């Protein structure tokens, strides 16, 4: 069967094929055309602040090692020994001048260079070109406001072009105050038996599920529900390139479940407005997704996470919390505890999401089920390009417009043989 990618997404009609959430053939194409080409989030600089610091993560299903070398420069490499293909580093993070493969002892510097090979003189007769057998580096690496991104595609546009207008929206989370943010130590990692696009579109575009799926948490004190205004404002915002933002009303900038956090938000409001500009008086960016699979939120938890694909029906989440670097310690502590009670594997909000995403994936195993397209028609024809927001924006706060732009971008990349065609 030839894969007709074009038929899978009909954004104009608001119809998406269920096949994209379950079929391995499509998933294998995603690994090539999405994950091996797009800029992917690796980590925040504050997770590897000093020379020699390293952290392991994934780009698509490729195991990746992100290291700050002895001179302080950040590099990212396949975490794979080029000799026999063994996974090189088995630690989550650490500090090293060199990493040594457990199989035969090939040693690599923290800049990825092959440093030493056992039996080089007697067994290889001194004849091995070290410059050809270092760790495989990413094609491009760049940072934006402390966030480290990389791509395996040397022809991919620059990170600045890739993020485009999304950059300002990222500032609303990661650069609200002088010094930006820092990551709270530690990490949440867990497995969800779901397709990676479900959480990506949920964070990017699904304001609809909050009032039903999360009502139990909202009414039990885990999140402060928006102030109950008649016209709460906000909307679904697509700044382009498949990136998505969910905004709440301009007045709802401090919906945190603790008074100390609300007081802090009041205290820094003028400074934040001054730093980010008048656009912030139109709405408050609250949740979002950088295409394809890095999501983030504020409000009940300040978290960023990557939905690492592990097959068409499985992901590994790597999730971190962030805080304004300039925030006082007691505010940081309040954000840590309230955040992890709401989001993370045990989060009173998030634990209910996992179950839905799992079932939204598994039902697609049914051949007949798979014939029926999914409905992404909410607000069809009711979004427009808003000059002030620099983005396509829905007229009402609830809309499927963001997922429609997300899947349009997905479809475009899946069909394109080069970036010129995207």
């Amino acid at each position, binding site marked *: 069967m030839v894969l007709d990618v074009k038929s899978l997404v009909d954004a104009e009609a608001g119809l998406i094929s269920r096949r994209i959430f379950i079929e391995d053939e499509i998933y294998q194409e995603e690994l090539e055309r999405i994950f091996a080409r797009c800029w992917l989030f690796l980590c925040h600089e504050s997770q590897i602040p*000093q*020379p*020699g*610091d390293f952290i392991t993560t994934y780009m698509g299903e490729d195991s990746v090692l992100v290291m700050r070398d*002895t001179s302080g420069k950040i590099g990212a490499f396949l975490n794979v020994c080029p000799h026999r293909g063994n996974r090189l*580093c*088995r*630690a*989550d*993070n*650490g*500090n*090293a*001048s*060199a*990493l*040594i493969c*457990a199989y035969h002892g090939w040693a690599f510097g*923290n800049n990825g260079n092959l440093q030493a090979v056992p039996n080089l003189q007697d067994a290889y007769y001194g004849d091995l070109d070290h410059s050809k057998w270092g760790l495989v580096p990413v094609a491009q690496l760049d940072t934006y406001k402390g966030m480290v991104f990389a791509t395996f595609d040397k022809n991919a546009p620059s990170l600045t072009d890739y993020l485009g207008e999304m950059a300002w929206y990222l500032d609303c989370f990661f650069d609200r105050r002088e010094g930006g943010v820092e990551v*709270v*130590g*530690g*990490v*949440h*990692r*867990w*497995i*969800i*038996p779901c397709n990676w696009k479900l959480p990506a579109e949920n964070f990017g575009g699904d304001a609809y599920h909050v009032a*039903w*799926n999360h*009502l*139990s*948490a909202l*009414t*039990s*004190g*885990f999140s402060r529900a928006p102030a109950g205004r008649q016209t709460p404002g906000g909307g679904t915002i697509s700044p382009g390139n498949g990136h998505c933002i969910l905004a709440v009303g301009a007045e709802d900038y401090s919906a945190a479940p603790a008074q100390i956090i609300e007081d802090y938000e009041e205290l820094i409001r003028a400074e934040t407005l001054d730093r980010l500009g008048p656009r912030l008086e139109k709405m408050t960016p609250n949740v979002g997704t950088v295409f394809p699979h890095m999501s983030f939120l504020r409000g009940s938890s300040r978290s960023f996470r990557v939905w690492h694909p592990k097959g068409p029906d499985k992901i*590994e989440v790597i999730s*971190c*919390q962030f805080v304004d670097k300039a925030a006082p310690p007691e505010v940081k*502590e309040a954000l*840590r*505890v309230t955040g*992890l*009670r709401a989001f*993370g*594997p*045990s989060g*009173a909000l*998030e*634990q*209910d999401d*996992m*179950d*839905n995403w*799992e079932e939204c994936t598994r039902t697609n195993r049914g051949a007949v089920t798979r014939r029926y397209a999914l409905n992404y028609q909410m607000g069809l024809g009711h979004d427009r390009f808003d000059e002030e927001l620099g983005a396509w924006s829905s007229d009402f706060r609830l809309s499927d417009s963001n997922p429609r732009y997300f899947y349009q971008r997905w479809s475009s990349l899946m069909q394109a043989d080069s970036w010129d065609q995207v």
Partner: protein
Amino acid sequence: MPNLITEETIREVEQFLYREARLLDNRRFSEWLEFFSEDLRYWMPTRSNRYPVNSKAISILDASRYEEEEVSGEDELAFMEETKKTLEMRVARLATGMAWAEDPPSRTRHIITNIEVEQGDTSDQLRAYSNFVMYRNRAERDEDFYVGSREDIMRREGGQLRISYRKIVMDQNVLLAKNISNFF
């Protein structure tokens, strides 16, 4: 310091922990909350993969950056960081009829073993160590094993043992379950 705890106290703590497990498995969460004091800290840190200091898989560049501790610290992310009040909030949430991760509810079995009881840091405190295997089965075929250790600090309040501190350390790095919607 010799362990001055009597056989009688050890039996009492064992029975206390078994009873607690039975209440959890029978979903008697309101009664379960009474096992904890008002000043409770209920903490489940995360685990990291780290090379031991003598590992030959790395040469360390900056010894001051080396961290051998696998268990996340007090000020770091944790799987759970609860007070008595937030545990009450979680139990209240389960009763809303909209706690979807537990609707229909999990079938759990808490196997509590390896109980050691010793004197706590103050004369009115007891410290109990235990291991647990928590089996969860849910819906048609969801199946998870949560395995780890606990450290409890407890004291008597009006003749009743109450736990004021519980540290739960799970033996997984990447949590292999899709969520944590039960108690330990």
